[in-house]
């Protein structure tokens, strides 16, 4: 187990290096920063100063190394839109994104577990047919349209909830629902399969022979054993969830990383784009690390 974590920890800097390299090259090669940072009325002195500051006269590889050196010191450069350091804009948007992600995760995991259990217990009967059909439809549902439908129903028609923005708990409900739908259908189907697989295990037959109630078997014998495949699934899906967050945030005007990133992209604010991409990568790596640790806590067999 420790070896897996150590392996991940050595792989993490490599991944980050790769991410920073790819994004840096993509953003530098395709646009001349002088055209992006300065307007048409620029003076030669301004151009010279910018070239000096961004080291544009040096080879691309040297520029990247300088960029990396600054990055290690936590300096992502100055934001074009906001003036201040790019990292500041990113840090203020972490909170809202984390709030949205955890609410969506909580919703998807609880609803998905319950629905998956029900579908497995009533396998091939009516509840299973309905839930599985819903899941397949849910997989085809673009989250941006789901968000728009929810706005129409709960914000415009019923006027129970605000259409967009951020504030109290009321503002969180629709975005969290929308984002959870990215994960929910697959989570339900994985739960269903995991539970069905476990039902054929010997220890379940033993528990049944002992005369334990079905619900007790489900909750104390099957569910804990299903936790591990579900956790692995979550680990793989964290990236998808982060991606879904970008779309959800821009539907609902949620002031998180995703919206910041989209606005940075449309304003060609390269330092902020790089900083957000970097931060998202770190989050994904950390989340996978947490998943690994949880694995060993849940399943003692992995520890040895």
């Amino acid at each position: 187990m420790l070896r897996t974590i150590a392996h991940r920890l050595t792989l993490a800097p490599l991944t980050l290096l790769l991410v920073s390299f790819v994004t840096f090259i993509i953003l530098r090669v395709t646009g001349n920063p002088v055209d992006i940072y300065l307007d048409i009325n620029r003076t030669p002195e301004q151009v010279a100063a910018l070239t000096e500051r961004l080291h544009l006269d040096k080879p691309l590889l040297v520029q990247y190394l300088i960029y990396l050196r600054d990055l290690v010191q936590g300096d992502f450069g100055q934001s074009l839109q906001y003036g201040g350091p790019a990292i500041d804009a990113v840090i203020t948007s972490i909170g809202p994104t984390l709030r949205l992600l955890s609410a969506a995760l909580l919703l998807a995991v609880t609803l998905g577990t319950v629905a998956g259990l029900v579908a497995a217990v009533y396998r091939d009967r009516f509840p299973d047919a309905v839930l599985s059909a819903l899941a397949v439809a849910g997989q085809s549902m673009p989250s941006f349209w789901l968000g728009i439908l929810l706005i129409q129903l709960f914000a415009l028609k019923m006027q129970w909830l605000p259409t967009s923005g951020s504030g109290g708990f009321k503002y969180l409900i629709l975005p969290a629902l929308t984002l959870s739908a990215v994960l929910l259908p697959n989570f339900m189907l994985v739960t269903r399969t995991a539970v069905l697989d476990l039902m054929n295990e010997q220890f379940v037959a033993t528990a049944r022979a002992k005369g334990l109630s079905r619900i007790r078997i489900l909750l104390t014998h099957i569910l804990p054993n299903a936790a591990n495949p579900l956790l692995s699934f979550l680990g793989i899906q964290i990236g998808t969830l982060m991606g879904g967050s970008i779309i959800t945030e821009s539907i609902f005007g949620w002031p998180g990383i995703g919206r910041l990133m989209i606005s940075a992209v449309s304003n060609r604010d390269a330092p902020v784009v790089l900083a957000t991409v970097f931060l998202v990568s770190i989050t994904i790596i950390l989340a996978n690390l947490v998943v690994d640790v949880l694995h060993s806590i849940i399943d003692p067999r992995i520890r040895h």
Partner: protein
Amino acid sequence: MARSLFKGQLKLWLGGGFVLAVVLMAIFADWIAPYDPYRQNLLMRLKPPAWMEGGSTRHLLGTDNYGRDLLSRLIYGARISLLVGVSSMVLSCTIGLVAGIFAGYKGGRCEQVIMRLADAHMAFPDILLAIVMVAAMGGGAFNLILVLGISRWMIYARVIFGLTRSIKQRPFVEAAASYGAKDVYITFRHILPQLVPVLTVLAALQVAQMILQETALSFLGLGVPPPAATWGNILAEGRDRLFVAPWIANAAGLAIILLVLSVNLFGNGLRERFDPRMRQAA
């Protein structure tokens, strides 16, 4: 058994039929669409669909903010969604196939490099990469195909890698190698045909994902730039008029989910036909 076979067939026919209809609609858009999708008519702005109050049969699905006929825009929009969806699937499938066969057949360092790269890429949200690339290169159908094609190669690579490695150890490949067949010959003659069923299913299902990605990027304003009629663009325009003209967003959303659902149905139907294990389980 007979019933499950029928079920698989039904999915195939239902999904495939709808997809075919959309394909035909896209090809013959010039004849089918009642109006020019770009012709503006400010006197006919934001007219609701025919079945709603104030709607007329002249514009069956109503009009948008510029008085453009929504039905015509949807019909033409299918072109871009299908073009981008299918082309980017072909691109990512090709990259993934070559990488997967290479890693699986050669093994060793080659496998290490390619598969670690795939792992690293897998952990990274594909929409994030797409956003960064579109930001750098600009929108447009061609760039979208390129971006989406690159952002999903590893899904094919991982599946093909596993399959190739197991096929390579089968007796007929070993026999071919023992009488001196070249690697390239073995790949095309013995390995590739074995991969076709899995690849077909995977490709069909991935087209649905690609269409969703394309509409998502268009929706974020990073796809084919307006005024191009794409389903994502129509949906994004509809979001801004949600209060006065909800039918715009809903028509586009419905079009997207129907197409994606039928592509998924078609793919699942294919899988049940090709994979005997699944057929028995179903």
